[in-house]
């Protein structure tokens, strides 16, 4: 891939977007003050990040092999299916454990 084609630009962009989103998710996880807030980072940012990465990889291998390679989509599909459920389970666990909440949080979770 010596001369940068549009495919290459696309792949590069997708990869960068994906990686950055993954990083943002991690930053969120690292810096947000309470568990429930931290939960947002990975559930969305990281999931999308991987989605973009997968897309980039898909485009790359499709272009390289000359035939469309779609099976990477399964990973994204799978992550989109499971991330909410993981988040749900973890939130339930956190509520059960009565984890500390940021004081300014409005509303109350309920007893598990």
């Amino acid at each position, binding site marked *: 891939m010596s001369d940068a084609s549009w495919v290459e630009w696309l792949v590069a962009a997708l990869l960068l977007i994906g990686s950055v989103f993954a990083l943002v998710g991690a930053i969120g996880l690292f810096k947000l003050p309470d568990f429930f807030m931290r939960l947002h980072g990975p559930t969305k940012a990281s999931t999308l990040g991987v989605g973009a990465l997968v897309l980039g990889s898909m485009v790359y291998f499709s272009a390289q092999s000359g035939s469309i390679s779609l099976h990477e989509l399964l990973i994204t599909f799978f992550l989109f*299916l499971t991330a*909410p*459920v993981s988040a*749900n*389970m973890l939130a*339930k666990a956190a509520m059960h454990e009565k984890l500390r909440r940021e004081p300014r949080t409005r509303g109350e979770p309920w007893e*598990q």
Partner: protein
Amino acid sequence: MTLALIVILPLLGSLLPLLFKNQGRSLCATMAMVAPVIGLALLWRHADAVFAGQTLIQSRPWLSELGLNISFRLDGLSFLFALMIQGIGLLVILYARYYLSKNDPMGRFFCYLQLFMSAMLGVVLSENLLLLMVFWEMTSLSSFLLIGYWSHSTDARKGARMALAVTGAGGLALLAGILLLGQIVGSYELTDVFAAGEQIRQHALYPVILVLVLLGVFTKSAQFPFHFWLPHAMAAPTPVSAYLHSATMVKAGVFLLARLYPALAGTDLWFYIVSSAGMATLLVGACTALFQHDLKGLLAYSTISHLGLITLLFGLDTRLAAVAAVFHIINHATFKASLFMAAGIIDHETGTRDMRRINGLLRFMPHTAVLAMVAASAMAGVPLLNGFLSKEMFFTETLEQHMLGNWSWLIPLGATLGGVFSVAYSLRFVHDVFFNGKPVNLPKYPPHEPPRYMRVPVEILVVMCLAVGLAPGFTVAGLLAVAAESTVSNALPEYSLAIWHGFNLPLFMSFAAMVLGILVYSLRRPLFDWYARQRDVDAKLVFEAAVQRLVRGAGQITLLLENASLQRYLLCLLLAALVVTGFWLLQLPALRGPVALTPIDGVTLAGAVLTMLSAVATAYWHRLRLVSLVTLSVVGLGVVLAFARFAAPDLALTQISVEVVTIVLLMLALFFLPARTPRESSGLRRGRDLIIALLCGALVGALAFAMLTRPYDSIADFFLANSVTGGGGHNVVNVILVDFRGFDTMGEITVLAIAAIAIYALIDGLRLRVPGADSLGKPWAQRGDLLMLVNLSHVLLPLALMISVYIFLRGHNLPGGGFIAGLITAVALILQYVASGEAWTAQRWPVNYHWLAGAGVLIAGATGVGSWAFGYPFLTSSFGHFHIPLVGEIELATAMLFDLGVYLTVVGATLLILANLGKLPQSRVVGGDF
């Protein structure tokens, strides 16, 4: 092989009394006599030859490389002993017929007795020393049974054990000595050993051999200081004592002394050891005998004393002394056997053996009294009886010995002293029992003469004492001559068996012994008082205490080493590994080999750091179990990434799948186990463990580094080259798994299946407390309503199955395969269990996982066997490309069938484990902390 027959006959004969034990006592006893009678007859057939001075050797090779041949020898010495063993054996059998009570199992008695007889005959008739050893040990064992015959009695059991331990120990020493002897000579045949006598005595190992052999001899013959077992063997029934301690068992020792005399005797060492042991035994036995109140005790110590005398004679190491020794062996056998029998009669009739209670029996049983008195006189060395003759010879020989230089007079002095006590205790036996007033408080009163035939053996023996004493020339001379001749393995010097040798020093010694003996006996009261004041050392107690101490010590050592602590055992294992491996590693010229290092990249570094930190965190937080579980998963993830990084996608797939199943398992286990580990080990212990752990780490690291920096030339190229052409697959790892090394995989799935059924077995009947709250005491959430999870899990199942099929089918050519596919299926099903519970899932998915796992192994195995049909070895694969219209080219390989077996086993085994573990608390709730 008539000699072998003589030995074997009693062995076979030992069964007869058992067969006839219910057919009446007389018949039983008669049956016991069959073997010795035939044996005597067989022996008699060779008598002429023996008396002509011939040595009969019958030999058949057996384990010739070992030097162990079935060879027997009949010469004068063995003839004499065989005669005594069978002759006195017959008398003992007759005697025991009347001695044993109705309650005693007679069949067993005669069985043991004949076993013993066979062993004794074997000892005396063996030509091969190893064969002799065989019979030697058999005498120990069979005498153990005989002494312990009255097994309900503690004394009998302990006495038997003591005898076995002491003679057994001696036997082992003897075995060592004989083995060395045989190695020096190059043969175990006595003939060769005799011929090599000079060579043996010159050999550097001669002292070792002599000591080892003498240990065997002395323990068996109850020589000081090993004599202590013999008195306690008196717990045996009296016929046993009469047999073992007059003519046989203890005589085996002196027999061996006589047997090996040509090979071992003739050195100073021999003289010093043998004669001093003999002298000490003679004196200790004689002195102690006087003070025994137990009739049999007196006889026992007297036996010890006489054995000492015989040993001393052999020790004096002159040929005439040897003649005297052989002569005394004969005499002692006759008078001692009769005395034991008499003692047995007295015991039988009075119910006690305590001489302080038995008095004046002459009135009650005059016949027996006369017999006993004659025999006792023989024991004392009274003229006209056989004991006198050999004792005279003994005294003569002590005077001939000048090995001690200026101190040589000590030997005749000691001999005389022994004679004194011998007279004194014989006198006591006679006076104290048959005279000395009236009986005191006898358990059976009044005593009677015994049954007629019980006395017969005693009579025969006493007549022999008399006959030999009166007319030695007519009776015993020939036998003695050939026996002594074969003992010294040489022509004998002139000697005379006459009663009267004129007034000489030996006669004076006899006279002195007689007079002083009477004097000593008359002073018995103060002597007894003196003896009673002595610290009472009961050898049995001492021995038992010693054994107890030994056992306790053994227990302490054992507990010290095996403290049932896994940590200790693991430490041993790890230290062993560290030491032996470190030993070699330190010899590496350089840890780093010649291969250049590959550069590090940032991502790998990050991954490695992550993995290491997680590992450290896992160890650091191990007391918070769930946390350490989370960090452990990170390590697992690091490993997965490492596999991916270093070009092993199959491994990454496998590791990640196994990982999650393991985590599920760990979670299941954590439910029942405490969530936290208490802090138990001291700082010191932790420090020690840390050092060991670091050393182990260093070891593994060093090994890895050393290996990684060295070149190697692997068989792997073959697999890369042949994977497609030979295995029909592009994924070489998979082809190795299902084809090149399919046998490993076969074993591997078997392991998995076994683990599953083993876990199933382990869970069966398991009872566990179901905790109602978590580690912080917070109750678990109410019945979980995991709506999202439940719905998703149902959606995922078909998806996962499809992925399984995908992974399975492509495994041969791309990363994947049956194992990973199986794990995916299993995990998808586990998710159903997690989401919806065991009962719900089991109801909808009633699969017998046992069956599945078994079927998997069967399919894999059957695939392997299938190649037999084509004449190929197990697991030979076959594949082909088939063109199917419309579909195109497809590849089919038997390896895929094999992989199907793998798949099924994995699914079956994994679910068998998890589903059953999951089922656990529902069916076995015992109690919770609600």
